């Protein structure tokens, strides 16, 4: 048994130990069990969210982009870094407020409340499930590749083990205090990534020497236009790269839910600061390590394994085991969160809404279980025989989701005339155009990214659909009033604005105006 495998096993045992310790500690006050993350501090809140949202892509896709395209990958990193701020400023306050006034819990429910029609859920839920499947698929592939590297077994076997462990975790994770294990994993991820980056820089003689060496291999890699300057002047592609993880990311149900989440304001504010620090430390790393891997390992058969291979080359053996284990665990927790979200969409947004309106919570669990197992089996079927690139899968699914949902989310709070017909047209147009653009190969021939065409199509459909149907499908009076309430507050001193308790948004409107 290799030393890496030994450390992998020790690591997982330690994580299980932390989980049991935290769970036992929590039992002293069982009242707190269901109070969600309320008892968790801002550090735990921020880092667990980060570790459960960016794993497979960062460790495989980002490294691969750096390895094959050099600094071009930084366009994606820039979008990713700015995405959080953009989300908060565009959607943030108004969306939280509107969701409170309309009483929405999930993102799809929010859309249906804002654009009242069963068709909203009937379209949104399958589109979200379709895209989440691809995102989960990326985690499966990343997990399989990582295990393949560490254990030396063939990819199909490693993939089967990885998927098996992920599904087991999704079923049995409740026995662990997942919040704390996610938190520890996030810290190890950051330390591991920074450690790999520093060790890489030492191995190549420093940042400047590394850039010089890359320049000797291919000077184009030092530009932001790609390895063969193929993206020079291709602003349609670059705009797409910037938009994918900034605007596109806003389409993910779990990201939108976090905007609507009910958190203690002081925790949320501090958690935001921790998230920014985490992103600054973490996001550029994989792209840089991937690029500098060209100097250390110029003949990698699969560029997606660049980070794993560099870690193996530059870290001490014991550290490789720990860091690899942390990466695997992070991939696992991301997949777990996505699978649970997919199960919730299938059970609550589809089964309970359209098939069995009197769904019991026992049935809800079964629908979720069947959904998770189906996604795992189909995922294995695709990944074992013809695994697509992780970066491509993540970018594709984020593009489709962003194109389908972002205009509906944004117009929901910023445009009073946005109505059900506009939202349905927008979701259909965004999905179809982005998928068609991608699969027909049009990005290569036109130089325009599907994110750009998808967003343009869905925005145009929203505007045209809404304006054309104002008479036949007016925005209901209840929604107009809720929007009026959402928009009324003028400039508030920043210190006070940041500390607001979103839980009070709905109560505020009624208490303040309807006396």
């Amino acid at each position, binding site marked *: 048994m290799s030393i890496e495998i030994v450390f992998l096993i020790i690591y997982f045992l330690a994580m299980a130990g932390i989980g049991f310790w935290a769970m036992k500690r929590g039992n002293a006050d069982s009242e707190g069990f269901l109070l969600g993350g309320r008892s968790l501090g801002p550090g735990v809140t921020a880092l667990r969210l980060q570790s459960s949202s960016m794993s497979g892509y960062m460790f495989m896709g980002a490294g691969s982009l750096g390895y094959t395209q050099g600094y071009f990958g930084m366009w994606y990193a820039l979008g990713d870094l700015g995405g959080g701020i953009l989300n908060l400023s565009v959607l943030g306050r108004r969306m939280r407020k509107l969701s409170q006034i309309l*009483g929405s819990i999930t993102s799809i429910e929010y859309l249906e409340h804002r654009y009242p029609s069963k068709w909203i859920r009937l379209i949104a839920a399958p589109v979200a499930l379709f895209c989440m499947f691809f995102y989960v698929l990326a985690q499966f592939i990343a997990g399989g590749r990582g295990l393949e590297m560490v254990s030396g077994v063939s990819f199909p076997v490693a993939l089967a083990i990885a998927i098996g462990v992920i599904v087991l975790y999704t079923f049995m994770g409740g026995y662990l205090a997942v919040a704390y294990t996610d938190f520890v994993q996030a810290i190890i991820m950051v330390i591991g990534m920074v450690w790999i980056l520093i060790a890489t820089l030492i191995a190549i003689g420093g940042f400047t020497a590394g850039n010089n060496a890359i320049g000797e291999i291919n000077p184009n890699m030092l530009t932001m236009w790609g390895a063969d300057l193929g993206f020079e002047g291709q602003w349609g592609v670059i705009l797409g790269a910037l938009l994918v993880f900034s605007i596109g990311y806003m389409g993910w149900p779990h990201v939108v839910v976090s905007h609507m989440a009910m958190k203690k304001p002081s925790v949320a504010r501090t958690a935001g600061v921790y998230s920014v620090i985490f992103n600054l430390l973490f996001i550029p790393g994989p792209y840089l390590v991937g690029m500098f891997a060209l100097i250390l390992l110029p003949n990698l058969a699969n560029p997606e394994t660049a980070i794993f291979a560099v870690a193996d080359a530059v870290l001490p053996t014991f550290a490789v085991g720990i860091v690899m284990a942390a990466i695997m665990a992070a991939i696992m927790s991301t997949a777990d969160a996505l699978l649970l979200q997919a199960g919730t969409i299938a059970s609550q947004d589809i089964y309970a809404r359209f098939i069995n309106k009197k769904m019991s919570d026992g049935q*809800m669990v079964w629908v979720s279980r069947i959904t998770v197992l189906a996604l795992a089996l189909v995922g294995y079927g695709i990944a074992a025989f013809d695994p697509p690139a992780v970066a491509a899968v993540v970018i594709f699914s984020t593009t489709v989701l962003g194109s389908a949902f972002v205009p509906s989310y944004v117009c929901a709070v910023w445009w009073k005339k946005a109505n059900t017909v506009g939202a349905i047209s927008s979701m259909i147009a965004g999905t179809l155009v982005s998928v068609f653009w991608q699969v027909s190969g049009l990005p290569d021939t036109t130089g325009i990214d599907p994110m750009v065409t998808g967003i343009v199509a869905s925005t145009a459909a929203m505007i045209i659909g809404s304006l054309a149907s104002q008479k036949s499908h007016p925005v209901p009076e209840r929604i107009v009033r809720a929007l009026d309430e959402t928009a009324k507050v003028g400039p*508030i001193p920043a210190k006070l604005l940041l500390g607001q308790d979103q839980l009070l948004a709905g109560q505020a409107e009624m208490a303040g105006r309807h006396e």
Partner: protein
Amino acid sequence: MQGRLKWLGVMNEILLKTIVDAEHAAKVLQAKAPDLEVVSASLRRHPFAGFEFHVPALAGRGETARALVDYYSGKAFISDRWESDPVLEVDDVEAVSDPSWNSISFETARQRAKALLSTAALRKARLAWKGGVKETASVEKVWKPNWILDVRIQGRNYRVIVDGLNGGYFFIES
């Protein structure tokens, strides 16, 4: 603890004890904006439907969880234990009137409370959970205290709501 609820089955109304007084509410805001001046403060009671559930956990354990559902928005929250006001009666307080454009019924509130707790339990326990959330008690109206403060900051007037239970705040208008 004085005023702690001891009840089973269905109750009609509970008046929650005000933990944060007017002075404390003002201090919460002044801690962020020292030049804030309170012009007036009044207590308003907001109506919620209250539910208590037994939620089965993994390995045979179960626990009690409570949910409040806002009658005027339909928004459901998982809540802490409720503590009733030992002195005041419902008739003594000023309640927020029904705006009538966004209100929900008690039955709808019950469904939302149960859906919220089932989802929360599933997310916590993952797919090994078997379900079986059972309502053990309900309160038709839980009156939660909120302070409405009219304040002035640097010559500009604002209206702010401050939660009478925990001191959280939200701007209503300016």
